[in-house]
């Protein structure tokens, strides 16, 4: 199982342990955990709702994971993305990569996050003291993504 899209929280330690155990030649495991920040560009939030496109989300994440495995020598990839209502401090996303060497694990994890930010169908609606507001896409995410184009 490479990709999960779920309401529930995830267990980082269990996920790392499972990926690490997959192959005795894994020397490097990189994790990225995304959290809901209290302070946003539009001020502090009390919560957010993460909408997604069931079906397409899983397909998009599977495609991103397959692309990472094609580009880097990985022993494992894992992507978990939550949806639904989330509060500040809660985990949103987990990306894990395992490789023989650290460089591949780091690069693949960055690639997965950059790609996910610009091509996985999720939309955040933040709650600013009772007034809800859809989050605008960040130009910085597009430029982060651009470096992987080839």
């Amino acid at each position, binding site marked *: 199982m490479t990709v999960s899209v779920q309401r529930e929280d995830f267990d980082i330690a269990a996920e790392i342990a499972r990926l690490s155990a997959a192959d005795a030649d894994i020397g490097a495991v990189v994790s990225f955990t995304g959290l809901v920040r209290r302070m946003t560009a539009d001020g502090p939030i009390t919560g957010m709702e*993460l909408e997604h496109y069931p079906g397409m989300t899983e397909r998009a994440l599977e495609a991103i994971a397959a692309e990472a495995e094609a580009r880097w020598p990985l022993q494992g990839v894992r992507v978990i993305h939550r949806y639904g209502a989330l509060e500040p401090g809660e985990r949103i996303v987990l990306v894990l990569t395992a490789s023989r060497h650290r460089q591949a694990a780091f690069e693949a994890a960055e690639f997965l*996050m950059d790609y996910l930010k610009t091509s996985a169908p999720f*939309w955040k609606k933040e709650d600013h003291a009772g007034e809800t507001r859809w989050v605008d896409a960040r130009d910085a995410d597009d430029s982060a993504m651009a470096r992987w184009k080839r």
Partner: protein
Amino acid sequence: MQVLYFAWLRERVGAASEEIDPGGAATARELVERLVASEPRYGAAFADMAAVRVAVDQEMCDLDTSIAGAREVAFFPPVTGG
């Protein structure tokens, strides 16, 4: 053809999905034009086409991609996950 809307496009259209006959619309953009001509709520939803993205059968596409034979066309703003 099933047409889906997400985020503020969904809110402005007032529906998450609709069964729509594309008529003569050959591309996603032509489908939008057809919708906008039919009812004001589509005009509000599609007022800024620079902020509209499209997926045809769950693949991210250009607005000028053909929708011939598509089962599912989805419109949404730029994604903000992660």
